């Protein structure tokens, strides 16, 4: 596959890449570069070289998944590039081509699909109190534990509309809106992308001999907890 041709179909690649002078300003301010083996300057440079094999290495590798999408690089690049947009187009292409399962970080897209992805279609929110426990999110701490354990009482005191069919915080989102969301996901490719993530992940899990089912199965735990990192 001609990856550059594919990338050129993505407006984010067109927007994101003008002419990189390899100055490294993006890397200097990048929060991801600070904590991981990640260098946006190098990624922009690689993409600019338009070498198909090198781009394939990116699509199969961990690096493109280290960006935090803070977009600090958009403000600072002296040439008006946006490394983050280039990353976004590479990430999409990595999923579209199925190459995401070749890297530890890419494989983790399944864990994200199984949490925020599924929560959006179940609750209409990307996160919802019923799903956030201190085993998954230990940093939530004792106050969250208290709030969650006593949620009916406390949320009522605070005027929230928890699970109720009226406006307000944490309300139950009406059926009509939930249907609209599902239908938009179906029409615009999100449902298909979810299916692809599941199917290819299943294949990979079998190859790795890790049990694969749905929800928080062994393969999910392996990715979410980072057993192989």
């Amino acid at each position, binding site marked *: 596959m001609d990856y550059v041709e594919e990338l050129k179909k993505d407006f984010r690649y067109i927007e994101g890449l003008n002419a990189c002078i390899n100055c490294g300003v993006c890397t200097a301010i990048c929060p991801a570069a600070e904590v991981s083996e990640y260098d946006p300057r190098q990624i922009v440079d690689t993409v600019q070289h338009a070498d198909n094999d090198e781009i394939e290495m990116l699509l199969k590798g961990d690096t493109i998944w280290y960006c935090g999408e803070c977009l600090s690089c958009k403000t600072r690049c002296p040439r008006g590039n946006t490394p983050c947009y280039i990353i976004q187009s590479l990430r999409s292409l990595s999923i579209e081509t199925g190459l995401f399962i070749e890297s530890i970080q890419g494989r983790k897209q399944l864990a994200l699909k199984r949490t925020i992805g599924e929560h959006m279609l179940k609750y209409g929110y990307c996160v919802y109190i019923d799903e956030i426990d201190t085993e998954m999110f230990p940093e939530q701490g004792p106050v969250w534990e208290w709030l969650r354990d006593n949620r009916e009482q406390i949320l009522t005191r*605070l005027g929230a509309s928890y699970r109720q069919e009226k*406006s*307000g915080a944490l309300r139950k989102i009406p059926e009509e809106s939930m249907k609209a969301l599902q239908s*938009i996901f179906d029409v615009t490719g999100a449902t298909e992308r979810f299916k692809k993530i599941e199917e290819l992940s299943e294949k990979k899990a079998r190859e790795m001999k890790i049990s694969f089912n749905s929800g928080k199965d062994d393969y999910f735990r392996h990715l979410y907890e980072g057993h192989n990192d």
Partner: protein
Amino acid sequence: MRYSRNEVWETYQKEIADNNFYFARSCIRQNVLPAAEDLFLKIIGTDLGKNIYDDARQTTCTGIAYHSGIIPFETTMTVVAHLFALMNEAGYENYACSCVTSFGIYSEVLETWKHFPEKEKEAREALKKATGKTFEIPKNLVHASDLIYKFRKEIANRSKYRLTDTTSGLPLKVVDHIGCHYAKIFPEKGIGGAEFPYVLAGLIDEWGGQQVDYPERRHCCGFGFRQYLLKSNRGYSVANSKKKFESMKPYKPDLIIANCPGCSFFLDRWQYVIAEMENTTYGENGYGIPVLTYEELAGLLLGYDPWDIGLQTHQVAVEPILDKLGINYNPDMKYKGAGNSNTDSPEQPSSIKMF
């Protein structure tokens, strides 16, 4: 000619409508600060007498999923189009959102449609096919903190308290943290631009406090979307927050204020985690530095009871800032449920004081 920083800020202004807003909630805020948005609605609606509509039909904007790389841009822009359609149906033209990620997403979608009109056409067709709906683009798009900024003088006029340390009479030292997606993507969409955002600093100035200008002031809190959401990548998040705490520590801030749901959450929770892991606290006497949102701070100054506006849901205790502001509060009411029912108090962490 040399200009002061505040003068530089004033060159970046944006249009903020005066009344009649469709309010869009934040998924994260409804969970972790479940009273904050209702407080915002009370301040704008009841205290300032503006018309603001809280629609039960709204949904996630999908921004967190988009920035985590699990859904296509086309899905996000169509969900945004749907939210605009809901705004139109409710009879509004001004869109005010509570989430900075959403604000970035709306701005991104609108800019994309400007530069690539075929994407707007695509969104219109997808929305029609999925829901049968059409939509008009909002006349005015603002973040909730823009409204508090716009009405900061009116809030000051109604306030019972100022940002003054009542024990020393000195201005309180306040760190402002602006969510990256507020102005780093499109500097012209934020008050003060990306380098010197004034949306929260303006509140500090107007309400009598002193800004803290520390080296890592503009550094990201470390959300990183997929990086925080995966336990195995979460070190990214705490490491970046820690970099900020270490950088602000020598200035001894009394308070941190933030305008982004994720940021206010991380700057609160990571202080707890760092204390538990390394026995380091950044506030005084074993406390952390309290973290408030723009409306929580406005609410306190206006005289709302701290426990009615949900400040007991913060992990870092807010009592040190209440004491400095001279606010009377009843500690016995902190952990009450509905109808003053009793709940067991949360467990006290080992290394950071909570009450």
